Protein backbone atom coordinates (compact mmCIF):
# COMPACT_ATOMS: atom_id res chain seq x y z
CA UNK A 1 0.00 0.00 0.00
CA UNK A 2 2.92 2.30 -0.79
CA UNK A 3 2.20 5.86 -1.89
CA UNK A 4 -1.35 5.52 -0.64
CA UNK A 5 -2.94 7.65 2.05
CA UNK A 6 -6.09 5.99 3.26
CA UNK A 7 -8.90 8.10 4.64
CA UNK A 8 -12.62 8.18 5.24
CA UNK A 9 -14.88 11.02 4.12
CA UNK A 10 -18.17 11.24 6.03
CA UNK A 11 -21.36 12.96 5.03
CA UNK A 12 -22.99 13.24 8.44
CA UNK A 13 -26.23 14.66 7.00
CA UNK A 14 -26.97 11.14 5.86
CA UNK A 15 -26.47 9.59 9.30
CA UNK A 16 -29.64 8.21 10.87
CA UNK A 17 -27.98 6.98 14.11
CA UNK A 18 -28.84 3.34 13.37
CA UNK A 19 -25.44 2.24 14.73
CA UNK A 20 -25.07 -0.44 12.07
CA UNK A 21 -21.42 0.68 11.77
CA UNK A 22 -20.77 0.02 15.46
CA UNK A 23 -22.43 -3.39 15.30
CA UNK A 24 -20.69 -4.40 12.06
CA UNK A 25 -17.35 -3.30 13.48
CA UNK A 26 -17.87 -5.27 16.70
CA UNK A 27 -18.81 -8.40 14.78
CA UNK A 28 -16.03 -8.04 12.20
CA UNK A 29 -13.26 -7.34 14.71
CA UNK A 30 -14.42 -9.54 17.59
CA UNK A 31 -14.75 -6.58 19.93
CA UNK A 32 -15.67 -8.02 23.36
CA UNK A 33 -19.06 -7.30 24.90
CA UNK A 34 -19.19 -4.52 27.46
CA UNK A 35 -20.16 -0.87 27.58
CA UNK A 36 -16.57 0.38 27.31
CA UNK A 37 -15.64 -1.76 24.35
CA UNK A 38 -16.09 -0.34 20.87
CA UNK A 39 -13.91 0.79 18.00
CA UNK A 40 -16.37 3.16 16.44
CA UNK A 41 -19.38 5.03 17.71
CA UNK A 42 -22.06 7.60 16.90
CA UNK A 43 -22.15 10.80 18.94
CA UNK A 44 -25.46 12.60 19.26
CA UNK A 45 -25.57 16.34 18.94
CA UNK A 46 -28.08 18.38 20.95
CA UNK A 47 -31.68 18.61 19.73
CA UNK A 48 -32.45 21.65 17.60
CA UNK A 49 -35.71 23.60 17.45
CA UNK A 50 -38.96 23.25 19.39
CA UNK A 51 -41.59 20.53 19.26
CA UNK A 52 -42.86 19.50 16.74
CA UNK A 53 -40.17 21.01 14.53
CA UNK A 54 -37.14 19.19 15.83
CA UNK A 55 -33.85 18.31 14.26
CA UNK A 56 -30.79 16.40 15.38
CA UNK A 57 -27.39 15.67 13.88
CA UNK A 58 -25.16 12.70 14.53
CA UNK A 59 -21.41 12.37 14.26
CA UNK A 60 -20.19 8.85 13.63
CA UNK A 61 -16.51 8.53 14.47
CA UNK A 62 -13.57 6.23 15.18
CA UNK A 63 -9.76 6.37 15.23
CA UNK A 64 -8.75 9.33 13.09
CA UNK A 65 -5.61 7.64 11.71
CA UNK A 66 -3.76 10.89 12.34
CA UNK A 67 -0.72 11.88 10.31
CA UNK A 68 0.75 13.17 13.57
CA UNK A 69 -0.58 10.60 16.06
CA UNK A 70 0.01 11.44 19.75
CA UNK A 71 -0.68 7.79 20.66
CA UNK A 72 2.36 6.68 18.67
CA UNK A 73 4.56 9.40 20.17
CA UNK A 74 3.76 8.42 23.76
CA UNK A 75 3.81 4.61 23.54
CA UNK A 76 6.90 3.49 25.49
CA UNK A 77 7.44 0.29 23.49
CA UNK A 78 6.42 1.26 19.93
CA UNK A 79 3.35 -0.93 20.29
CA UNK A 80 1.47 1.63 18.21
CA UNK A 81 2.73 1.56 14.64
CA UNK A 82 1.86 3.60 11.59
CA UNK A 83 1.82 1.83 8.23
CA UNK A 84 3.13 3.62 5.11
CA UNK A 85 -0.50 4.01 3.96
CA UNK A 86 -1.35 5.84 7.21
CA UNK A 87 -3.15 3.03 9.05
CA UNK A 88 -2.41 3.35 12.78
CA UNK A 89 -2.54 0.03 14.60
CA UNK A 90 -1.43 -1.70 17.81
CA UNK A 91 1.01 -4.60 17.91
CA UNK A 92 -0.67 -6.67 20.62
CA UNK A 93 2.37 -8.44 22.00
CA UNK A 94 4.26 -5.17 22.53
CA UNK A 95 1.45 -3.47 24.47
CA UNK A 96 2.27 -3.27 28.19
CA UNK A 97 -1.15 -1.92 29.16
CA UNK A 98 0.05 1.41 30.55
CA UNK A 99 -2.85 3.17 28.79
CA UNK A 100 -0.70 6.21 28.06
CA UNK A 101 -2.09 6.20 24.50
CA UNK A 102 -5.61 6.32 25.91
CA UNK A 103 -4.81 9.48 27.86
CA UNK A 104 -2.96 10.96 24.86
CA UNK A 105 -5.69 10.41 22.25
CA UNK A 106 -7.86 13.52 21.99
CA UNK A 107 -10.65 11.48 20.36
CA UNK A 108 -11.05 8.75 22.98
CA UNK A 109 -10.65 6.26 20.15
CA UNK A 110 -8.92 3.56 22.22
CA UNK A 111 -10.00 1.05 24.84
CA UNK A 112 -8.30 -1.79 26.66
CA UNK A 113 -9.32 -5.16 25.25
CA UNK A 114 -9.07 -7.68 28.09
CA UNK A 115 -9.51 -10.61 25.73
CA UNK A 116 -6.48 -9.87 23.59
CA UNK A 117 -4.58 -8.25 26.46
CA UNK A 118 -3.77 -5.04 24.61
CA UNK A 119 -5.16 -1.63 23.79
CA UNK A 120 -7.45 -1.92 20.80
CA UNK A 121 -8.86 0.49 18.23
CA UNK A 122 -10.05 0.88 14.65
CA UNK A 123 -7.57 -0.33 12.02
CA UNK A 124 -9.68 0.73 9.01
CA UNK A 125 -10.28 -3.06 8.90
CA UNK A 126 -6.75 -3.45 7.53
CA UNK A 127 -7.26 -7.21 7.11
CA UNK A 128 -10.11 -6.51 4.67
CA UNK A 129 -8.56 -3.48 3.02
CA UNK A 130 -5.38 -5.35 2.09
CA UNK A 131 -7.60 -7.94 0.38
CA UNK A 132 -9.21 -5.19 -1.68
CA UNK A 133 -12.42 -5.05 0.39
CA UNK A 134 -14.00 -2.12 2.21
CA UNK A 135 -13.92 -1.57 6.01
CA UNK A 136 -16.95 -3.24 7.62
CA UNK A 137 -18.46 0.07 8.78
CA UNK A 138 -18.27 1.52 5.27
CA UNK A 139 -19.76 -1.56 3.64
CA UNK A 140 -22.63 -1.86 6.08
CA UNK A 141 -23.80 1.77 6.31
CA UNK A 142 -27.34 1.82 4.89
CA UNK A 143 -27.28 5.51 3.94
CA UNK A 144 -23.68 5.63 2.64
CA UNK A 145 -22.42 8.11 5.21
CA UNK A 146 -18.85 6.86 4.80
CA UNK A 147 -16.64 6.75 1.76
CA UNK A 148 -13.29 5.02 2.09
CA UNK A 149 -10.28 5.43 -0.19
CA UNK A 150 -6.91 6.82 -1.08
CA UNK A 151 -6.61 10.59 -0.97
CA UNK A 152 -3.31 10.45 -2.85
CA UNK A 153 -5.25 9.22 -5.89
CA UNK A 154 -6.99 12.23 -7.46
CA UNK A 155 -9.52 9.96 -9.17
CA UNK A 156 -10.67 8.19 -6.02
CA UNK A 157 -14.13 8.95 -4.69
CA UNK A 158 -12.71 10.38 -1.47
CA UNK A 159 -10.52 12.83 -3.42
CA UNK A 160 -13.42 13.85 -5.64
CA UNK A 161 -15.67 14.47 -2.62
CA UNK A 162 -12.99 16.53 -0.87
CA UNK A 163 -12.42 18.57 -4.05
CA UNK A 164 -16.11 19.17 -4.55
CA UNK A 165 -17.30 19.96 -1.00
CA UNK A 166 -15.84 21.87 1.92
CA UNK A 167 -14.88 19.64 4.83
CA UNK A 168 -13.63 19.78 8.41
CA UNK A 169 -11.67 17.55 10.77
CA UNK A 170 -12.24 17.05 14.50
CA UNK A 171 -10.13 19.08 16.95
CA UNK A 172 -7.79 20.62 14.35
CA UNK A 173 -6.11 22.71 17.06
CA UNK A 174 -4.56 19.52 18.50
CA UNK A 175 -2.27 19.39 15.48
CA UNK A 176 -2.90 15.67 15.01
CA UNK A 177 -3.78 15.97 11.28
CA UNK A 178 -6.69 13.50 11.30
CA UNK A 179 -7.69 11.51 8.21
CA UNK A 180 -11.39 11.38 8.84
CA UNK A 181 -12.93 14.23 6.91
CA UNK A 182 -16.45 15.50 7.62
CA UNK A 183 -18.26 17.19 4.77
CA UNK A 184 -19.80 20.49 5.77
Amino acid sequence: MKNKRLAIVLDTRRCIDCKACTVACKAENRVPLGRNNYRNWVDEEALRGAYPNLGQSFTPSQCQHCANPPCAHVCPTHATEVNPDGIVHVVDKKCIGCKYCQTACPYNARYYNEEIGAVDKCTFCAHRVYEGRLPACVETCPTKVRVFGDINDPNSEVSRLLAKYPSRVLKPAQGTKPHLFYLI
Partner: protein
Amino acid sequence: MLAILKHRPSSRLWFSLLGIGMIVGAIGVVNVLLKGHGHVYNVSREIPWGILISTYVFLVVSSTGLCLISSLGHVFGIEKFEFFGKRAILLAILTLLCGFGTIAMELNHPLRMALYAVISPNFTSAIWWMGTLYGLYLVLLCGEFYFLMKGMHKGAFTMGMLGFIAAVSAHSNLGAVFGLLEARPYWYGPFLPLYFILSALVSGGAIISLLVYFHHKESGELMPQRYGEFMDTLGRLQALFLMILIFFVIWKIIPGLYGRPPEKYEATMAVLFGPLAFNFWFFEVLIGMLIPVTLLLNRRTRTPLGVMYAGLLSTFGIFFMRYDLVVAGQLVSMREGAADLVGGLLHYAPSLTEVAIVVGAISLCLFLYTLAEHLLPLREEEH
Protein backbone atom coordinates in the same frame (compact mmCIF):
# COMPACT_ATOMS: atom_id res chain seq x y z
CA MET B 1 11.07 -10.78 64.13
CA LEU B 2 10.03 -12.27 67.48
CA ALA B 3 12.71 -10.25 69.22
CA ILE B 4 11.25 -7.12 67.68
CA LEU B 5 7.77 -8.00 68.84
CA LYS B 6 8.95 -8.57 72.37
CA HIS B 7 10.69 -5.24 72.22
CA ARG B 8 7.75 -2.96 73.08
CA PRO B 9 3.98 -3.27 73.14
CA SER B 10 3.68 -0.28 70.80
CA SER B 11 5.73 -2.01 68.14
CA ARG B 12 3.47 -5.07 68.48
CA LEU B 13 0.48 -2.85 67.71
CA TRP B 14 2.36 -1.17 64.85
CA PHE B 15 3.34 -4.49 63.27
CA SER B 16 -0.21 -5.84 63.67
CA LEU B 17 -1.64 -2.81 61.89
CA LEU B 18 0.87 -3.09 59.07
CA GLY B 19 0.24 -6.86 58.93
CA ILE B 20 -3.49 -6.25 58.45
CA GLY B 21 -2.70 -3.62 55.80
CA MET B 22 -0.46 -6.04 53.92
CA ILE B 23 -3.07 -8.82 54.08
CA VAL B 24 -5.67 -6.40 52.69
CA GLY B 25 -3.23 -5.54 49.91
CA ALA B 26 -2.51 -9.19 49.18
CA ILE B 27 -6.26 -9.90 48.89
CA GLY B 28 -6.49 -7.02 46.40
CA VAL B 29 -3.59 -8.39 44.37
CA VAL B 30 -4.99 -11.92 44.32
CA ASN B 31 -8.39 -10.55 43.35
CA VAL B 32 -7.04 -8.70 40.34
CA LEU B 33 -4.84 -11.61 39.28
CA LEU B 34 -7.82 -13.97 39.38
CA LYS B 35 -10.51 -11.75 37.90
CA GLY B 36 -8.65 -9.28 35.70
CA HIS B 37 -8.30 -5.51 35.73
CA GLY B 38 -11.55 -4.81 33.91
CA HIS B 39 -13.63 -6.57 36.54
CA VAL B 40 -12.13 -5.23 39.75
CA TYR B 41 -10.77 -1.77 38.89
CA ASN B 42 -12.99 1.27 38.38
CA VAL B 43 -10.76 2.83 35.75
CA SER B 44 -12.47 3.06 32.40
CA ARG B 45 -12.01 3.81 28.76
CA GLU B 46 -12.42 7.52 29.46
CA ILE B 47 -10.51 7.63 32.77
CA PRO B 48 -7.76 5.04 32.30
CA TRP B 49 -5.56 6.29 35.16
CA GLY B 50 -6.90 6.06 38.68
CA ILE B 51 -5.76 5.86 42.30
CA LEU B 52 -3.00 3.33 41.57
CA ILE B 53 -1.29 5.82 39.28
CA SER B 54 -1.74 8.66 41.77
CA THR B 55 -0.38 6.47 44.59
CA TYR B 56 2.58 5.55 42.42
CA VAL B 57 3.18 9.28 41.92
CA PHE B 58 2.79 9.87 45.66
CA LEU B 59 5.32 7.15 46.53
CA VAL B 60 7.94 8.17 43.99
CA VAL B 61 7.53 11.85 44.92
CA SER B 62 8.26 10.76 48.47
CA SER B 63 11.33 8.93 47.26
CA THR B 64 12.58 11.92 45.29
CA GLY B 65 11.89 14.26 48.17
CA LEU B 66 13.78 12.05 50.63
CA CYS B 67 16.73 11.93 48.25
CA LEU B 68 16.71 15.69 47.63
CA ILE B 69 16.45 16.68 51.30
CA SER B 70 19.04 14.15 52.45
CA SER B 71 21.37 15.46 49.71
CA LEU B 72 21.47 18.70 51.65
CA GLY B 73 23.55 16.76 54.18
CA HIS B 74 26.00 14.42 52.50
CA VAL B 75 26.13 16.14 49.08
CA PHE B 76 25.78 19.83 49.81
CA GLY B 77 27.57 19.66 53.13
CA ILE B 78 24.95 21.09 55.47
CA GLU B 79 26.07 19.24 58.58
CA LYS B 80 22.77 19.49 60.42
CA PHE B 81 21.23 17.37 57.68
CA GLU B 82 23.77 14.59 57.73
CA PHE B 83 22.68 12.39 60.59
CA PHE B 84 19.54 10.92 59.02
CA GLY B 85 21.21 10.20 55.64
CA LYS B 86 21.09 6.41 55.82
CA ARG B 87 17.49 6.36 56.97
CA ALA B 88 16.36 8.80 54.32
CA ILE B 89 18.10 6.92 51.51
CA LEU B 90 16.82 3.58 52.74
CA LEU B 91 13.26 4.91 52.85
CA ALA B 92 13.79 6.50 49.41
CA ILE B 93 14.65 3.03 48.06
CA LEU B 94 11.63 1.43 49.73
CA THR B 95 9.12 4.09 48.66
CA LEU B 96 10.44 3.82 45.11
CA LEU B 97 10.14 0.02 45.09
CA CYS B 98 6.62 0.13 46.53
CA GLY B 99 5.77 2.79 43.95
CA PHE B 100 6.99 0.44 41.22
CA GLY B 101 4.87 -2.32 42.77
CA THR B 102 1.79 -0.10 42.66
CA ILE B 103 2.24 0.85 39.02
CA ALA B 104 2.98 -2.77 38.15
CA MET B 105 -0.50 -3.61 39.43
CA GLU B 106 -1.96 -0.95 37.15
CA LEU B 107 0.00 -2.08 34.09
CA ASN B 108 -1.63 -5.01 32.41
CA HIS B 109 1.72 -6.50 31.38
CA PRO B 110 4.62 -5.48 33.66
CA LEU B 111 6.75 -8.36 32.36
CA ARG B 112 6.22 -7.41 28.73
CA MET B 113 7.34 -3.94 29.72
CA ALA B 114 10.70 -5.23 30.92
CA LEU B 115 11.26 -6.93 27.56
CA TYR B 116 9.93 -4.44 25.02
CA ALA B 117 11.22 -1.35 26.83
CA VAL B 118 14.66 -2.79 26.04
CA ILE B 119 14.23 -4.30 22.58
CA SER B 120 11.70 -1.80 21.23
CA PRO B 121 12.31 1.49 23.04
CA ASN B 122 10.45 4.63 21.98
CA PHE B 123 12.59 7.64 22.85
CA THR B 124 9.73 10.09 22.32
CA SER B 125 7.74 8.46 25.12
CA ALA B 126 7.94 10.12 28.53
CA ILE B 127 6.94 6.79 30.09
CA TRP B 128 9.96 5.11 28.51
CA TRP B 129 12.17 7.82 30.03
CA MET B 130 10.33 7.50 33.30
CA GLY B 131 11.18 3.80 33.55
CA THR B 132 14.77 4.32 32.48
CA LEU B 133 15.49 7.31 34.70
CA TYR B 134 13.83 5.79 37.75
CA GLY B 135 15.73 2.56 37.11
CA LEU B 136 18.99 4.48 37.04
CA TYR B 137 17.93 6.45 40.11
CA LEU B 138 17.24 3.19 41.98
CA VAL B 139 20.71 1.86 41.16
CA LEU B 140 22.32 5.09 42.34
CA LEU B 141 20.26 5.13 45.54
CA CYS B 142 21.36 1.56 46.30
CA GLY B 143 24.99 2.53 45.68
CA GLU B 144 24.63 5.56 47.89
CA PHE B 145 23.08 3.48 50.65
CA TYR B 146 25.86 0.92 50.39
CA PHE B 147 28.59 3.56 50.70
CA LEU B 148 26.79 5.26 53.58
CA MET B 149 26.53 1.94 55.42
CA LYS B 150 30.21 1.25 54.83
CA GLY B 151 31.09 4.76 56.00
CA MET B 152 32.80 5.50 52.65
CA HIS B 153 32.21 9.22 52.40
CA LYS B 154 33.73 9.85 49.01
CA GLY B 155 31.70 7.12 47.37
CA ALA B 156 28.57 8.31 49.15
CA PHE B 157 29.20 11.85 47.95
CA THR B 158 29.68 10.78 44.32
CA MET B 159 26.65 8.51 44.37
CA GLY B 160 24.69 11.19 46.20
CA MET B 161 25.57 13.80 43.59
CA LEU B 162 24.63 11.50 40.71
CA GLY B 163 21.55 10.40 42.61
CA PHE B 164 20.52 14.02 43.06
CA ILE B 165 20.80 14.65 39.32
CA ALA B 166 18.92 11.42 38.54
CA ALA B 167 16.21 12.31 41.07
CA VAL B 168 15.64 15.74 39.53
CA SER B 169 15.68 14.32 35.98
CA ALA B 170 13.42 11.36 36.76
CA HIS B 171 10.95 13.33 38.77
CA SER B 172 10.62 16.33 36.48
CA ASN B 173 10.18 13.79 33.69
CA LEU B 174 7.33 12.23 35.66
CA GLY B 175 5.71 15.66 35.54
CA ALA B 176 6.31 15.57 31.79
CA VAL B 177 4.43 12.25 31.51
CA PHE B 178 1.37 14.38 32.21
CA GLY B 179 2.66 17.72 30.95
CA LEU B 180 3.36 16.53 27.41
CA LEU B 181 -0.23 15.46 26.77
CA GLU B 182 -1.70 18.17 24.60
CA ALA B 183 -5.03 16.33 24.66
CA ARG B 184 -5.34 17.06 28.40
CA PRO B 185 -5.32 20.84 28.87
CA TYR B 186 -5.40 20.57 32.67
CA TRP B 187 -2.01 18.85 32.62
CA TYR B 188 -0.48 20.19 29.44
CA GLY B 189 2.48 22.59 29.60
CA PRO B 190 5.80 23.03 31.40
CA PHE B 191 4.11 23.65 34.75
CA LEU B 192 3.94 20.05 36.00
CA PRO B 193 7.65 19.13 35.65
CA LEU B 194 8.54 22.20 37.73
CA TYR B 195 5.74 21.71 40.22
CA PHE B 196 6.62 18.03 40.72
CA ILE B 197 10.15 18.91 41.82
CA LEU B 198 8.98 21.55 44.24
CA SER B 199 6.29 19.39 45.74
CA ALA B 200 8.88 16.62 46.15
CA LEU B 201 10.78 18.91 48.50
CA VAL B 202 7.63 19.36 50.58
CA SER B 203 7.03 15.59 50.63
CA GLY B 204 10.63 14.85 51.53
CA GLY B 205 10.77 17.42 54.31
CA ALA B 206 7.48 16.17 55.75
CA ILE B 207 8.55 12.53 55.78
CA ILE B 208 11.96 13.34 57.24
CA SER B 209 10.29 15.19 60.10
CA LEU B 210 8.33 11.99 60.78
CA LEU B 211 11.43 9.82 60.49
CA VAL B 212 13.49 11.89 62.88
CA TYR B 213 10.68 12.35 65.39
CA PHE B 214 9.53 8.73 65.54
CA HIS B 215 13.01 7.31 65.40
CA HIS B 216 13.81 9.31 68.46
CA LYS B 217 10.48 8.60 70.13
CA GLU B 218 11.01 4.89 69.61
CA SER B 219 14.38 5.03 71.34
CA GLY B 220 12.56 6.09 74.51
CA GLU B 221 15.17 8.66 75.46
CA LEU B 222 14.91 12.39 75.86
CA MET B 223 15.38 14.23 72.59
CA PRO B 224 19.00 15.38 72.31
CA GLN B 225 19.55 19.06 71.67
CA ARG B 226 20.94 18.33 68.22
CA TYR B 227 17.64 16.70 67.19
CA GLY B 228 15.65 19.57 68.61
CA GLU B 229 17.74 22.10 66.70
CA PHE B 230 17.43 20.06 63.55
CA MET B 231 13.64 19.89 63.85
CA ASP B 232 13.54 23.67 64.26
CA THR B 233 15.64 24.21 61.12
CA LEU B 234 13.65 21.63 59.19
CA GLY B 235 10.46 23.32 60.38
CA ARG B 236 11.57 26.69 59.01
CA LEU B 237 12.64 25.13 55.73
CA GLN B 238 9.38 23.24 55.48
CA ALA B 239 7.44 26.48 56.06
CA LEU B 240 9.31 28.01 53.13
CA PHE B 241 8.66 24.99 50.88
CA LEU B 242 4.97 25.03 51.82
CA MET B 243 4.66 28.73 51.03
CA ILE B 244 6.24 28.14 47.64
CA LEU B 245 3.82 25.23 47.16
CA ILE B 246 0.88 27.51 47.95
CA PHE B 247 2.25 29.95 45.38
CA PHE B 248 2.38 27.10 42.83
CA VAL B 249 -1.16 25.99 43.66
CA ILE B 250 -2.47 29.52 43.18
CA TRP B 251 -0.73 29.79 39.83
CA LYS B 252 -2.13 26.45 38.80
CA ILE B 253 -5.65 27.74 39.45
CA ILE B 254 -5.55 31.22 37.92
CA PRO B 255 -4.67 30.23 34.32
CA GLY B 256 -7.36 27.53 34.59
CA LEU B 257 -10.03 30.14 35.25
CA TYR B 258 -8.84 33.23 33.41
CA GLY B 259 -10.53 33.50 30.04
CA ARG B 260 -12.18 30.13 30.62
CA PRO B 261 -9.75 28.08 28.51
CA PRO B 262 -11.68 25.14 27.06
CA GLU B 263 -11.42 21.88 29.04
CA LYS B 264 -8.83 23.35 31.43
CA TYR B 265 -11.54 25.56 32.89
CA GLU B 266 -13.96 22.65 33.41
CA ALA B 267 -11.22 20.58 35.08
CA THR B 268 -10.21 23.48 37.33
CA MET B 269 -13.85 24.02 38.31
CA ALA B 270 -14.14 20.29 39.09
CA VAL B 271 -11.30 20.75 41.57
CA LEU B 272 -12.55 24.01 43.07
CA PHE B 273 -16.31 23.47 43.19
CA GLY B 274 -17.04 20.10 41.60
CA PRO B 275 -16.55 16.45 42.54
CA LEU B 276 -12.98 17.01 43.81
CA ALA B 277 -13.80 20.14 45.84
CA PHE B 278 -13.87 18.43 49.24
CA ASN B 279 -10.54 16.73 48.57
CA PHE B 280 -9.09 20.02 47.43
CA TRP B 281 -10.31 22.41 50.10
CA PHE B 282 -10.25 20.04 53.07
CA PHE B 283 -7.31 17.71 52.42
CA GLU B 284 -5.05 19.65 50.07
CA VAL B 285 -5.56 23.21 51.30
CA LEU B 286 -6.49 22.89 54.96
CA ILE B 287 -4.79 19.65 56.06
CA GLY B 288 -1.95 19.68 53.56
CA MET B 289 -0.91 23.32 53.52
CA LEU B 290 -2.69 25.84 55.77
CA ILE B 291 -2.55 24.04 59.13
CA PRO B 292 1.06 22.85 58.62
CA VAL B 293 2.26 26.27 57.53
CA THR B 294 0.54 27.87 60.52
CA LEU B 295 2.15 25.35 62.90
CA LEU B 296 5.56 25.92 61.34
CA LEU B 297 5.49 29.71 61.17
CA ASN B 298 4.48 30.11 64.79
CA ARG B 299 7.57 29.87 66.98
CA ARG B 300 5.60 28.40 69.88
CA THR B 301 4.26 25.50 67.82
CA ARG B 302 7.51 24.88 65.92
CA THR B 303 8.51 22.31 68.52
CA PRO B 304 9.67 18.82 67.44
CA LEU B 305 6.11 17.61 68.09
CA GLY B 306 4.63 20.49 66.09
CA VAL B 307 6.99 19.95 63.17
CA MET B 308 6.11 16.25 63.21
CA TYR B 309 2.36 17.03 63.15
CA ALA B 310 2.87 19.47 60.29
CA GLY B 311 4.78 16.78 58.40
CA LEU B 312 2.09 14.17 59.03
CA LEU B 313 -0.68 16.50 57.86
CA SER B 314 1.27 17.59 54.76
CA THR B 315 1.90 13.96 53.85
CA PHE B 316 -1.85 13.25 54.01
CA GLY B 317 -2.62 16.40 52.06
CA ILE B 318 -0.09 15.55 49.39
CA PHE B 319 -1.60 12.10 48.90
CA PHE B 320 -4.87 13.79 47.98
CA MET B 321 -3.03 16.39 45.92
CA ARG B 322 -1.69 13.59 43.69
CA TYR B 323 -5.07 11.92 43.43
CA ASP B 324 -6.84 15.14 42.51
CA LEU B 325 -4.23 16.03 39.91
CA VAL B 326 -4.40 12.65 38.19
CA VAL B 327 -8.20 12.42 38.22
CA ALA B 328 -8.97 16.07 37.40
CA GLY B 329 -6.94 15.88 34.21
CA GLN B 330 -9.26 13.16 32.88
CA LEU B 331 -12.70 14.32 34.06
CA VAL B 332 -13.49 16.33 30.95
CA SER B 333 -14.72 14.04 28.20
CA MET B 334 -12.68 13.91 25.02
CA ARG B 335 -15.92 13.65 23.05
CA GLU B 336 -19.01 15.73 22.78
CA GLY B 337 -22.09 13.65 23.31
CA ALA B 338 -20.32 10.94 25.28
CA ALA B 339 -22.54 8.86 27.52
CA ASP B 340 -22.46 8.70 31.35
CA LEU B 341 -21.64 12.34 32.00
CA VAL B 342 -22.57 13.67 35.44
CA GLY B 343 -22.88 17.45 35.37
CA GLY B 344 -20.90 17.52 32.13
CA LEU B 345 -18.03 15.50 33.63
CA LEU B 346 -16.98 11.88 33.64
CA HIS B 347 -16.97 10.03 36.93
CA TYR B 348 -14.31 8.02 38.77
CA ALA B 349 -14.18 6.64 42.30
CA PRO B 350 -11.61 3.97 43.22
CA SER B 351 -12.88 0.40 43.66
CA LEU B 352 -12.33 -1.57 46.87
CA THR B 353 -9.62 -3.61 45.16
CA GLU B 354 -7.80 -0.47 44.04
CA VAL B 355 -7.96 0.95 47.59
CA ALA B 356 -6.81 -2.40 49.04
CA ILE B 357 -3.72 -2.38 46.82
CA VAL B 358 -2.94 1.19 47.87
CA VAL B 359 -3.27 0.26 51.55
CA GLY B 360 -1.10 -2.80 50.94
CA ALA B 361 1.64 -0.87 49.16
CA ILE B 362 1.89 1.78 51.86
CA SER B 363 1.78 -0.83 54.64
CA LEU B 364 4.47 -2.90 52.93
CA CYS B 365 6.68 0.17 52.61
CA LEU B 366 6.30 1.04 56.30
CA PHE B 367 6.76 -2.60 57.32
CA LEU B 368 10.01 -2.99 55.38
CA TYR B 369 11.29 0.28 56.78
CA THR B 370 10.47 -0.64 60.38
CA LEU B 371 12.04 -4.04 59.89
CA ALA B 372 15.20 -2.49 58.47
CA GLU B 373 15.27 -0.04 61.33
CA HIS B 374 15.46 -3.01 63.72
CA LEU B 375 17.82 -5.17 61.70
CA LEU B 376 20.31 -2.78 60.09
CA PRO B 377 22.86 -0.61 61.88
CA LEU B 378 21.34 2.72 60.84
CA ARG B 379 22.63 4.58 63.84
CA GLU B 380 24.17 7.87 62.80
CA GLU B 381 27.86 8.50 62.97
CA GLU B 382 29.06 11.27 65.19
CA HIS B 383 30.34 14.26 63.30
